[in-house]
């Protein structure tokens, strides 16, 4: 019956036994990253490919922060995380394969 | 109607037809297996009173057999097709020294640009003929396909050639006719209300006749 106990617990009470995430700290990260992005793009001193790669890296970093903390993915059961990343392979396949038209 | 592919006049057409019939045999075996099995089961196991069905949840051995056998067949088929496909369609495998034409498709006609007596496209003696495609037999031909408005498809059944002509692209196709003859270019991609009548005459000449025809045409321009 332990299964039952677990279940009701997760349905009835909310899933926030974890300590409250530091929302303001994340906000600060996001702010700094945005400033850094704009800086990198507008100063335009680095080689083009470095700019592109670093901008993409920072964008992904920000997106992951939002998903993990604001959307609470970090604190969700891993099964839910699986749902959240499910479309990513399809996205990757779509974009990479269509791009191969030009690369091959 | 005969249940047959039309006579083949191109070099790689032989292999295409061969592959067609190889697949026909493989799928034919699978077809007979499935359909005969179904009929046999219907007859043999139809319900009888007092009879109880055999209780089973399956067999791992059988699952493995009917996964592995088709997979092997498909891998072999895939490798074989891949090689042939690369020979036919890969631009790096296009034959050297082929005579080149340009075909511009538009609603609903085929404009054939001939290289002229110097056999080089883009020079002064090029000329254009509407809906008439003449070329010599026995040597490779490359056609550069372009389209002006919408997508058309360059289809000569007897030469086993088909390739879409896409606006904004210049797509090479090659073939090598083994014999002389008269055929048609048909348009195989829906391109509007005249799609069904977008055809052009194809004449495959002996080399000498082709030269003569081209010379006379070039003069007339």
């Amino acid at each position, binding site marked *: 019956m332990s299964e039952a106990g677990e279940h009701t617990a997760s349905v009835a009470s909310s899933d926030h036994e974890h300590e409250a995430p530091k929302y303001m700290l994340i906000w600060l990260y996001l702010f700094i990253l945005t400033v850094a992005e704009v800086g990198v793009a507008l100063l335009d001193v680095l080689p083009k490919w470095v700019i592109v790669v670093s901008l993409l890296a920072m964008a992904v970093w920000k997106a992951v922060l939002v998903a993990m903390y604001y959307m609470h993915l970090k604190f969700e059961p891993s099964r839910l995380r699986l749902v959240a990343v499910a479309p990513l392979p399809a996205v990757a396949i779509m974009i990479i394969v269509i791009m191969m038209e030009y690369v*091959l | 109607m005969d249940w047959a592919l039309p006579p083949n006049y191109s070099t790689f057409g032989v292999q295409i037809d061969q592959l067609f019939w190889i697949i026909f045999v493989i799928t034919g075996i699978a077809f007979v297996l499935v359909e005969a099995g179904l009929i046999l089961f219907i007859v043999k196991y139809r319900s009888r009173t007092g009879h109880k069905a055999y209780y089973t949840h399956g067999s791992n051995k059988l699952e493995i057999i009917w996964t592995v056998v088709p997979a092997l067949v498909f891998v072999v088929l895939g490798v074989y097709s891949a090689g042939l*496909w690369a020979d036919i369609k890969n631009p790096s495998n296009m034959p050297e020294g082929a005579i080149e034409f340009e075909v511009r498709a538009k609603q609903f006609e085929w404009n054939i640009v001939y290289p002229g007596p110097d056999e080089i496209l883009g020079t002064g003696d090029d000329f254009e003929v509407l809906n008439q495609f003449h070329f010599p037999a026995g040597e490779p031909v490359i056609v550069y396909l372009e389209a002006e408005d919408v997508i058309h498809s360059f289809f000569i059944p007897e030469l086993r050639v088909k390739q879409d002509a896409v606006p904004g692209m210049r797509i090479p196709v090659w073939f090598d006719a083994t014999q002389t003859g008269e055929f048609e270019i048909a348009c195989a991609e829906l391109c509007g209300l005249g799609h069904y009548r977008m055809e052009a005459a194809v004449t495959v000449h002996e080399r000498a006749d082709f030269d003569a025809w081209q010379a006379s045409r070039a003069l007339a321009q």
Partner: protein
Amino acid sequence: MATIVAEAPGQATGHAEHEQSFLRKYIFSSDHKIIAIQFLFLTLFFLAVGGLLAMMMRYQIAWPDQPIPGGGILPESMVASGYILPEFYNALVTMHGSIMVFLAIMPMLVGVYANYLIPLQLGTHDMAFPRLNMYSFWLMVPAGIITLASFWVIGGAAGAGWTLYAPLSARPDLTGVELGQVMWLVALIFIGLSSILGSVNYITTTINMRAPGMTWFRMPLTIWALFITAILALLAMPVLSAAGIMLLFDQTLGTSFFLPEGGGQPLLWQHLFWFFGHPEVYILILPAMGFVSEILATGSRKPVFGYKAMVWAIVAIAFLGFIVWGHHMFMSGMNPTLGLSFTVSTLLIAVPSAIKTFNWMGTMWRGNLKLHTPMLFAISFVALFAIGGLSGVFMAATPVDIYIHDTYFIVAHLHYVLFGGSLFALFGAIYYWFPKMFGRMMSEKWGKVHFWTTFVLYNLVFFPMHGLGMVGMMRRIYDSTGYAHLEGIQDTNQLITVAAFGLYLTGFIFAFNFFWSIFKGKKASRNPWDATTLEWQTPSPPKHGNWDEVPVVYHGPHEYSHPDVLDKDWLAQNERPDVVSPAGGSH
């Protein structure tokens, strides 16, 4: 109990029957069973419409030089002095394909049966989001109305093929279709939204609301198929919507996403369309495979052979379905090296289909076959799907596809998988679940008549199309008599057309049986087929809310002829093992 009620928000009173107005009960209902029946009527109507368009097409193909009978009632823009116009023919092909795929078969497979069966077979009171479910039906209605209306606007209905290849579909000056193309895209966006909302519901319900004991591997194969289908739709439909919106902007706002003059890429449309389109064709077959597995097990009185292999095959088909789309584009000017990888993946995707085919045969092997109408349709599904699948192998082999691409060989293939596959399975499913839906049986006698006439005429219509394709007859041509290489095929075309008319008439046998049985059919018991899944353990039809008390599941989905069960040859999923027989265990 409490937790279960909490699981169904918005429908918290799952089983407290309220007095509801007629409108709330039958029209704007959020009961999944009513919604399913609404979908059934809508899709049968569109099946008849799509068929009618096919009949006009067939007439034109067989007798291009003769005026079409009754053509006079159509406006001059479609039929001029009795003759079908080429642009109207294009509209017929396009709308036949589109209506059949998007408004008949897909919503019939998913809208009707996912709605009807998921809550019943999983043992819940309703869907996770009943209101959303209602919206998903009511989005289909405007889509249908717009589609039908597009025939009567200036310029006629869309005429660029169901695949809407740009630039043809993007530029009215090149098709002569002004509004029709736009209307069809708008309808498509409605359909996409409807199907996404539906999928969210099906997936959530399946993941989170299964009855106690209904573990993943005790789910009936129908549910597996519908669940995976919903995932496919969820991931593929939005891409079509995105592409459709860009195409809509090309048509109306003067952008040029797919128009080379403005720097756009015609091939990008094809990539996006087929990235959706290939998963779409599996959306159209997977649920059918699920129904067939279940009907075959019931009809053979045996558990499904290789249940787990069947499940993994569905998953494999779905996964591979996302990496094969390029096989529709072998001749499109796509990079030939890319073509290579698509050949290999396409051939690989045939492996799970092979697994399924052989397991269906395994299910029938040493069974106790009851050849009732649903069973006949299910068996012929296997027979005909195999033909369609095998013709797919020809096309997957790229060199062969050079010749047969865009010929009637493809038309034969697609009707073998879509009609011989999906529609045959659907007929089977309608006969099979009719008693549950309407509380009455359909007539067996007329069912058999319908089956045999359909089976024979169907093959007469579509089998010869392989031959037409081999001869080289192109698709979507209004008149094939102008081509030298197509001489001598007109007899075949006429034979096909005559058979097609017959095939259409068989639809009326079905329609008659269907409507007659709703009112006059023999009253159905709870479980007329002696089936094991949960829906058969409720009254026919089940009441609002489905169950007083949620059932508890003890057994796998298709336990027929269990040796320990002595008094009957089936074991319902929710039968308490200790009640049935002392030794009866679950598997």
